[in-house]
């Protein structure tokens, strides 16, 4: 959660800290796997019975259960599942009868694109709010920004999504309120990263359509994070603005805006960064309900369907994938912090 504290450590010690960190990550992931596995096997309702047409005999159900390994004791099932996972096999989805890994990886790009878009929006919105608040500190502008931040922070993404649907889907319908792309469009894509691939292929018509679908769900996810970034960054910017090196750069002839951007921003951004890492995992967690709200075909939407259909292997695969993403984000943020902090780099 917090940075790797490497100040004054030699390379061997840094290696040790890193290894320790990887070990705890592994323990966390194992814990998630065990909990999900056992929780979903207490789910009432037989998934096999649900997938067979009505009138199927008990024998049919038993045969199919055996096929999915659901007739064995839970611990044995876990052993089988785990040995599969080690070989990259996450089982087969009960509803679609396709490999879980392929299904999940097919939906992952949509969720990643949505999360990254939201993160970028949050950084832009929060950054601009913090910079404007710092530039005009002590004035009415700063007060207005504080109030807006407080509002944005108090209300979660789900409600912002609904508000956005009303504003830009109904009142002034300029964005699409459901789906990832207009279904009638012909898509030439070979990957599932529609947003990036449309840019790469210079198909700006498709790109615009994808953005028009993505805009509202991404903004809904971005608003609370933008408020957090705005608040933290403004606070540390304002502290930085009183430091001697900032004062010195004022005497060099720079305007106030340039002083903020050149001297204060980089040092103020570091403490914000570590906190944004955890917050970004919250944002990714929020995609589950936001994708549902906007009928966006990502992992989260698939996850809710999987729960509704009692598709145990699929649920398991998705939850683990989320856990991998969360812990991965935290690890990346820690590394970024080390790379960006010159004091640690040369420590």
């Amino acid at each position, binding site marked *: *959660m917090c940075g790797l504290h490497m100040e004054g450590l030699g390379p061997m010690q840094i290696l040790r800290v890193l290894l320790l960190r990887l070990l*705890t990550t592994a*323990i*966390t*992931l194992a*814990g*998630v796997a065990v*909990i*999900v596995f056992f*929780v*979903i096997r*207490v*789910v*009432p309702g037989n998934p096999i019975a649900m997938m067979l047409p009505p009138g199927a005999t008990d024998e049919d159900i038993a045969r199919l259960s055996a096929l999915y390994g659901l007739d064995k004791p839970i611990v044995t099932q876990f052993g089988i599942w785990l040995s599969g996972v080690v070989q990259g096999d996450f089982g087969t989805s009960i509803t679609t009868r396709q490999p879980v890994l392929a299904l999940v990886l097919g939906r992952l790009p949509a969720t990643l694109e949505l999360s990254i878009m939201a993160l970028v929006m949050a950084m832009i919105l929060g950054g601009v709010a913090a910079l404007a608040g710092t530039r005009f500190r002590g004035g009415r502008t700063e007060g207005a920004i504080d109030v807006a931040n*407080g*509002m944005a*922070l*108090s*209300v*979660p993404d*789900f*409600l912002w999504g*609904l*508000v956005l*649907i*009303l504003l830009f*889907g*109904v009142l002034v319908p300029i964005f699409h*309120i459901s789906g990832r792309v207009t279904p009638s469009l012909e898509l030439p894509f070979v990957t599932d990263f529609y947003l990036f691939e449309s840019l790469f292929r210079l198909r700006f018509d498709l790109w615009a359509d994808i953005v028009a679908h993505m805009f509202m769900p991404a903004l809904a996810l971005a608003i609370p994070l933008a408020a957090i970034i705005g608040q933290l960054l403004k606070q540390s910017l304002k502290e930085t603005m009183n430091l001697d090196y900032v004062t010195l750069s004022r005497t060099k002839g720079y305007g106030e805006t340039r002083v903020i951007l050149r001297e204060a921003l980089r040092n103020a951004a570091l403490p914000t960064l570590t906190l944004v890492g*955890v917050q970004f*995992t919250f944002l*990714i*967690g*929020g995609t*589950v*309900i936001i994708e*549902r*709200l906007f009928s966006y075909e990502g992992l*989260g939407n698939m*996850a*809710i369907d999987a*729960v*509704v259909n*009692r598709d145990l292997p699929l*649920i398991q695969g*998705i*939850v683990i994938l*989320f*856990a991998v993403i*969360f*812990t991965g984000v935290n690890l990346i943020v820690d590394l970024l912090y080390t790379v960006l902090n010159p004091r640690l780099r040369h420590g």
Partner: protein
Amino acid sequence: MAEAKAIDGRSLIRRRAGLRLWLSAGWLGMLCIAALLAPWIAPKDPLAQDLFLGRMPPVWEMGAEPGYWLGTDSLGRDVLSRIIHGARIALMVALIAGTITCVIGATLGLLAGFLRGWVDLVISRLIDIWMAFPPVLFSILLIAVLGPGLWSIIIAIVVIDWTRFARVVRAEAMAQGAMDYVASARVAGRGRFGTMLREILPNVLPTIVVLLTLEMGIAVIVEAILSFVNLSISTDQPTWGGMISEGRASVHQAWWVLVFPLITLFLTVLSFSQLGEGLKDRFDPVLR
């Protein structure tokens, strides 16, 4: 003179915080009264359907039906009455789930932060594992396991959100535990648990109260989200989330079915959170 100026600015902040506190407390108080007196003050039966009165707009719009102040949904049920009755479940979930989560989470956090050692190790590891779950998905999964119903929702909220309290209280307890007064209490002959309850707990309490207020707002949202994915309470009980779910489906035909429950939910969540923030300012010794 400089002193006077600083004090002036401070009281300004306090006035603003005070207003915020009163507005949120006012809205929540109103909601409580509405929930308690729902059967008497709701103008209609929230469950009564009338297919001839389906999707009637609110009274100030053209073609409204008198007596249905905020219009009706597609089954002809009165939106205002459903919002008033929906407040019962929302507030029940907020109070019960919030309190239980608070007690369990704060206790674990206090134990981890004060006792340290293996207790802390186990609890911290659990928190890490919990943080790696997507919370909304986890809650949906739990409801699927427990089956729909008020208590399922409450259990799901407790199981998922105890870490919010545990994390913060653990850190606070650790910080307090490192202070001199704790050491001197130990020297004066107070036992470990005595020190924890008499010395540490009172100092962590303001934080816990603030977190509790915030958690109540979160509980209301979780209930709404679960209703939204049709996993909350049986469908014949009016809930805000359920109304929003219906409203989202027919937003182009009858905006009021979405708008009014949404405004209610928005104000309630905002109030809980502003109440928490206002209390935080009150408790903050720098501002006091």
